[in-house]
């Protein structure tokens, strides 16, 4: 008995000792820990293609334009404004003045030209720091001209409306030329951009750490992340941990520049700031916001609520946690604040659980069946419509994909809300009508089709489960679909070469960044695999071709939108595909985190991220009570 008691005390003492006596198993208030799914490949935005890496990059770098938060529309970022020539071939960008990279060098038109030349010009001194897999996004660029330090002009070899969307993609993020010159091929491990967070360190297999960049220029109000919903930030006494009076702020920035500051100095500054009713500087809408500290404190005392006390996070830590069960365990234990890409079952469990929030976004993604419009029974539009009528996207997304996707209708994913035609609805399941169409086409006594399926693959969601569900649906209208499955790379090689004459159906999924991309590469007559395109079902409708061509040349967005609406209607009627779903990703975060939004691009901009709770604002509360 005695011995057991002693043993228990010793164990408790060891654990207490190891843990340093307080509660260090949860990250402190100024730090946000994000569980990612893999070790980043590279932090060079022009080299990597992984979403996992993009989620870090969009916090370190900015491009000329970016997606307006919550949408996929290009909006100003490092370019304050731009003009497009009437023929759609010349883009002139006015750059923001006074912007500096994290390494101290100046952002200007020369830096912009350096970035694109590095990607596009094989003769460029730093082209060898590639390969740049997404350089083809900008292959329409003929020349880049520095008009003056704050004006840069791109000439395209043909009108190309998706140019702005492509610039908003991470491949268009601007890297510091000085960093490229200094680090060469290793620049992907020493990133330097103009974004709100600067890179601090990368411990392989453990973390990538970012901290707020004191010299951040801030983006103008309407563009800022979560601006409208977060309008109440000021009222809720939001504090940047390094809050300070203006004079102190200057000194603080000076210290940062000299590289002297650390969390301790910041604490001291807070204590000084807390000693009087001075103005407090926070960041709202990317602009400094002043609020009376005294007022804020009164309100806090009145409410006696820790939950209202939000602190903008100062430090971001991205952890690669490849094992999904470990991500779940870390969330439950509180060791991470945010986790991405959990299984649907786990997301459902967190939705029911107190203390967690689930955020969702539907991406510019399309999951569809390619139908062979050239050979076999599906060359008859009536049979293609029958296939569309046989399946029910609603049921497939709910039961098979368990809400990790939403039903989709046409070739323009709904995430492009400006271009998507709301009147084109998914085909409604109607087995009677489907059987009638089949009978009309002369297949009244049934039909055999060959159906190719990958066993996995990027964006393919659950390809085999989907295939068997669809096979069941087809059987009920008298189509006997024979499934053949392949490993993803072998599958791609086969399907991207075009469906041969005894293959009828193939699954496919795309995630794009402009409504032009998918129709242009996969629906035009001239986009057949033999001509280097991805139109594996050999769909060809000159009217659709004309719409695609006009839309990519139109410089006016409303005109483009109208063209896409017509395109969707036409494709819906011709049914070259059976469009089923768009991917929906989710994020699980501790309840105390706010200012998060999962973008339709599945990126995560964390400029506005804040933590609430007594612990979160510890630094400030301490300062306030010490001051008085």
């Amino acid at each position, binding site marked *: 008995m005695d011995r057991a008691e002693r043993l228990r005390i010793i164990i408790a003492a060891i*654990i207490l*000792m*190891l*843990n*340093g006596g307080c509660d*260090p*198993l949860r*990250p*402190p208030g100024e*730090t946000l*820990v994000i569980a990612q799914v*893999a*070790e980043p*490949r*590279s932090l*060079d935005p022009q*080299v990597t*293609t992984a979403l996992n890496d993009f989620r870090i990059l969009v916090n370190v770098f900015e491009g000329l334009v970016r997606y307006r938060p919550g949408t996929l529309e290009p909006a100003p970022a490092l370019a304050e404004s731009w003009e497009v020539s009437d023929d759609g071939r010349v883009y002139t960008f006015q750059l923001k003045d006074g912007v500096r990279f994290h390494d101290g060098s100046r952002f200007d038109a020369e830096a912009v030209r350096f970035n694109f030349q590095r990607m596009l010009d094989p003769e460029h001194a730093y082209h060898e720091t590639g*390969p740049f*897999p997404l350089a*083809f996004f900008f292959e329409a660029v003929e020349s880049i001209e520095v008009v003056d330090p704050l004006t840069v002009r791109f000439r395209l070899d043909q009108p190309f409306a998706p140019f702005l969307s492509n610039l908003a993609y991470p491949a268009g993020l601007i890297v510091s030329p000085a960093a490229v010159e200094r680090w060469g*091929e*290793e620049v*992907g*491990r020493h990133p330097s951009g103009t974004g709100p967070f600067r890179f601090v360190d990368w*411990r*392989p*297999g*453990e*973390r990538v*750490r970012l901290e707020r960049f004191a010299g951040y220029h801030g983006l103008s109000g309407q563009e800022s992340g979560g601006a409208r919903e977060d309008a109440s930030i000021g009222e809720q006494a939001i504090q940047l941990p390094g809050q300070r009076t203006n004079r102190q702020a200057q000194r603080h920035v000076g210290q940062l520049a000299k590289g002297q500051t650390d969390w301790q100095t910041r604490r001291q500054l807070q204590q000084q700031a807390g000693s009087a009713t001075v103005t407090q500087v926070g960041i709202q809408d990317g602009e400094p916001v002043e609020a009376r500290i005294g007022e804020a404190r009164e309100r806090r005392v009145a409410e006696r609520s820790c939950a209202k006390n939000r602190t903008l996070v100062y*430090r971001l*830590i991205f*952890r*690669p*946690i*490849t*094992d999904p*069960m*470990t991500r779940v*365990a*870390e969330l*439950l*234990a509180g*060791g991470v604040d945010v986790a991405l890409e959990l299984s649907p079952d786990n997301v459902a469990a967190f939705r029911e659980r107190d203390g967690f929030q689930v955020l969702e976004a539907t991406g510019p993604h399309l999951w569809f069946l390619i139908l062979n419009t050239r050979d076999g029974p599906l060359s008859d539009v009536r049979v293609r419509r029958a296939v569309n009528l046989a399946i029910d996207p609603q049921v497939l997304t709910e039961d098979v994909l368990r809400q990790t996707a939403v039903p989709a209708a046409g070739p323009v994913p709904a995430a492009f809300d400006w271009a998507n035609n709301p009147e084109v609805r998914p085909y409604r399941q109607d087995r009677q009508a489907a059987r009638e169409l089949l009978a009309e086409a002369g297949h009244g006594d049934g039909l055999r089709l060959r159906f190719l399926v990958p066993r996995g*693959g*990027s*964006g393919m969601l659950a390809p085999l489960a989907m295939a068997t569900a669809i096979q069941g649906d087809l059987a009920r209208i008298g189509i006997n679909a024979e499934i053949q499955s392949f*490993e*993803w*790379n*072998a599958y*791609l090689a086969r399907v*991207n070469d075009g469906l041969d004459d005894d293959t009828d159906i193939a699954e496919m999924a*795309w995630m794009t960044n402009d409504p032009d991309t998918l129709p242009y*590469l996969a629906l035009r007559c001239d986009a057949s695999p033999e001509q*280097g395109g*991805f139109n594996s079902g050999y769909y060809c409708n000159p009217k659709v071709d004309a719409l695609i061509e006009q839309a990519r040349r139109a410089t006016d967005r409303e005109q483009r939108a109208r063209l896409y609406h017509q395109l969707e209607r036409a494709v819906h009627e011709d049914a070259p595909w059976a469009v089923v779903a768009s991917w929906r990703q989710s994020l699980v975060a501790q309840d105390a985190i706010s200012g998060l939004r999962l973008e339709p691009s599945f990126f995560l901009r964390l400029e506005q991220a804040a933590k609430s709770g007594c612990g979160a604002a510890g630094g400030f509360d301490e300062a306030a009570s010490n001051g008085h």
Partner: protein
Amino acid sequence: MGAYLVKRLLMLIPVLLGVSLVVFGVMSLVPGDPALAILGPYATPERLAELRTELGLDHSWPVRYGIWLGGVLDGDLGRSVSLERPVLEAVLERLGPTVLLASTALLLGTLLGLVAGMVAALRHNQLTDRLVTFGVLLGISIPSFWLGLVLILVFAVWLGWLPVSGMTQVWSDASSLWSVADVARHLLLPSLSLALVAGGVIGRLTRGAAIDVLASAPVRMARARGVPERRVLLVHGLKSVSARMVPVIGLQAGFVIGGAVYIETIFQWPGLGRLLVEAIAARDLLLVQGGVLVLAAAYVLVNLAADLTQHALDRRTRAA
């Protein structure tokens, strides 16, 4: 002795050559294209072809193996496509954590195994023996990755005593003294998951060896001469049992290193095992190759060390 050591070290060369050849061959059979992995699924065929040429993938695998081997002789293990950096650098950086984890697990497992085996042998056929034997059997039969998850659930999620995963607290960079304690508490659960399996095997064999030794002539002699029991156990018993157990421990080192591959993945330990898993998933041939070579070399060297230790402990094998 010197000649023996040189001979054993020279044996490393054919072993590593064989291992690398097998890895290269197997990886070339695995479906998947590194060029596609780099460019993403929507790469145009021309761009893919270009990159394949750049990476030398359009040669047959024996040719690629020859090119790779040439590089190795120059001390160049190639460049990892999934990490965008030299293989050697990435592998060496991850070696330390794996060595730490594996040696802690082996040490813990050996201690647990020796103690459990000796206790069971001393209480031969009594209740304690049965209980220990049952525990040891449990240790052998429970898969360590499952044990790892259970340990996480109990000690990290429910009790909140220890961190779930990682090697250090990711948000702090404090003094070195704190770092030692910090690594120690992160090390506890993963090394325990590995140690229990190794300890089970060692314990079972120790029990058998100890029963033999305790019944052997020298021990009976010592007892008859009136040597205190404690001294009999420690000097005669433990010493000869340990000498017999050294090769077993050496073999267990191999299992611990192998087990580290998935334990590192579950506990997100930044070691070589996890690097390998990620490299295989990314079809990063050169990184897999580099990682496997280092692990294979470690395995051979540990067993060499075990053999040498046995020589030192047991005179009878010295002649051999």
